[in-house]
């Protein structure tokens, strides 16, 4: 399934149906919508002249493709045309007939880590245009004039956005109201049955051979226990549980030790702001130093698989 998904994903990406971007703190409107880039010579050369060029951002490009395909242009035609050309063609065509966006090819922009960018800065005026009833051809169709190109711009309805947001960084309660209103929100919770079915049981033979099968089951149980305690702990809460995918690709005992030592426990450390008493309390219901987590040393970790085993046993033995 993994391979299949990847293959399809790449195929759709290549056809231009899907684009994948990741927001980060310095991601800006110019990259997303449109901006002006400076053309100088090659690296190391000196140039006499500097050229400025208008450049469409990823979102505008995808909107162009979506609108272009909805009014019947093929991929090559769309590539050679500017947004302005396509928008004019759209206006022309929509005079005589209603454009059928419903059966048009869908285009999807995936924005990973959407909350890590400054959303109002990146989206600018677009945030209003995104609403379904303000898209091109909709009842309250709305367009805006873009600041650099002076293009008249609207969002075609066959363009979709899927964003991802990590709630450990920032609770969704703190999200901009403007965004909350316009996006649909779907919660992803840790799903350990998927882990069990799609990895632990599916690859049972292989995992048993490497000696990690039983430990993975114990780890799964332990994480479920830890999560339920995290949910009960008011200062942490359900937004900061530990997901199932930390254990998903683990095939050997040493990988499992790594996952606990370098990923899971540090995450817990972060959630508790390095309060090791609290970590011990979550894991073992007591604040005192345990063998693996100490007030002075922090996360001690596991020297071998037996130690990890007794760590897991201790967590799972508690009610």
């Amino acid at each position, binding site marked *: 399934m993994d391979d299949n998904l990847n293959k*399809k994903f790449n195929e759709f990406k290549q056809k231009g149906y899907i684009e*994948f971007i990741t927001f980060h703190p310095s991601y800006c409107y110019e990259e997303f919508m449109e901006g002006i880039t400076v053309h100088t010579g090659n690296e190391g050369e000196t140039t006499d002249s500097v050229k400025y060029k208008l450049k469409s951002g990823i979102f505008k490009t995808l909107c162009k493709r979506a609108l272009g395909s909805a009014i019947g242009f093929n991929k090559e035609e769309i590539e050679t045309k500017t947004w302005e050309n396509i928008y004019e063609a759209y206006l022309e065509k929509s005079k005589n007939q209603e454009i059928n966006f419903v059966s048009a090819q869908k285009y999807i922009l995936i924005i990973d880590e959407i909350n890590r960018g400054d959303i109002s800065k990146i989206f600018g005026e677009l945030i209003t245009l995104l609403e*379904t009833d303000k898209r091109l051809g909709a009842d309250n169709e709305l367009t805006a004039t873009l600041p650099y190109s002076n293009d008249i711009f609207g969002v075609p309805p066959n363009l979709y956005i899927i964003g*991802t947001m*990590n*709630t450990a960084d920032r609770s969704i309660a703190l999200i901009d109201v403007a965004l909350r209103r316009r996006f649909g*929100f779907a919660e992803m919770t*840790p*799903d350990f049955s998927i882990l069990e079915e799609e990895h632990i049981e599916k690859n049972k033979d292989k995992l048993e051979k490497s000696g990690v099968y039983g430990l993975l089951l114990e780890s799964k149980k332990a994480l479920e226990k830890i999560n339920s305690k995290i949910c009960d702990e008011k200062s942490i809460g359900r937004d900061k549980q530990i*997901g199932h995918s930390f254990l998903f690709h683990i095939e050997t005992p040493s990988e499992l030790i790594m996952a606990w030592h370098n990923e899971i426990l540090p995450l817990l450390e972060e959630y508790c702001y390095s309060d090791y008493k609290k970590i011990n309390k979550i894991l073992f219901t007591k604040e005192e130093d345990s063998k693996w987590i100490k007030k002075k040393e922090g996360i001690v970790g596991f020297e071998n698989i037996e130690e990890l085993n007794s760590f897991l046993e201790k967590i799972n033995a508690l009610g």
Partner: protein
Amino acid sequence: MSNNAKWWKISPARGGKDWDDWLQGKYCLLYNWEEKPYYSKIKKDLKKNYKNPDEFLKEPDFKGEKWPLQLKTFVWDVNEGDIAFAYKQGEFVGVGKVESYYYNETKGHLRNIDWKEIKLNLDKTEIIKILNIAAAGTIKNIDIYRNELMKLIKENNLNLTYLLMENSTFDETIDLLSQKSQIILYGPPGTGKTYKAREFAVNFIKNHIKED
């Protein structure tokens, strides 16, 4: 919704003559069952689902005492999000997801079903065997054969995982995306958000594919 999805075998009479039409039209129609009691009950239920139930019940003179059991099943026990296996005289013709509430047109009793994977060229004999055991009757619940069927589907590489996925968030999220046009998948670290985003995108486009 489909967390409690039931599985059904649907194989109406008339020698399965009309299957081809149905598969293309993405619906399932039961006819020749004219007795129509429980009208008020249906109507009440439709009211919950639709603003204007009369639009869907074109014949306002529902009367009679008895309902054929299987029609009752079709109306009351089948739910949106359930899975239907299309069975036509020893042939396994498709699998679909029930997409609408029951409604009634002059020609009969209808539900929309989004049929998938209709042209299967693989060896389906094992699946047929199971459907045969579950057999007799126009519409039968086959939940008890679920594990066996699932196993066969996997073994035969029938790419139906998307359809048969138990995870209800899948459908709901796709619906949300159609409705809002933009969604955000949120959750703690390690819950597969990025993976899911890719998966949703691929399936969304696959479902609405339009070849150039």
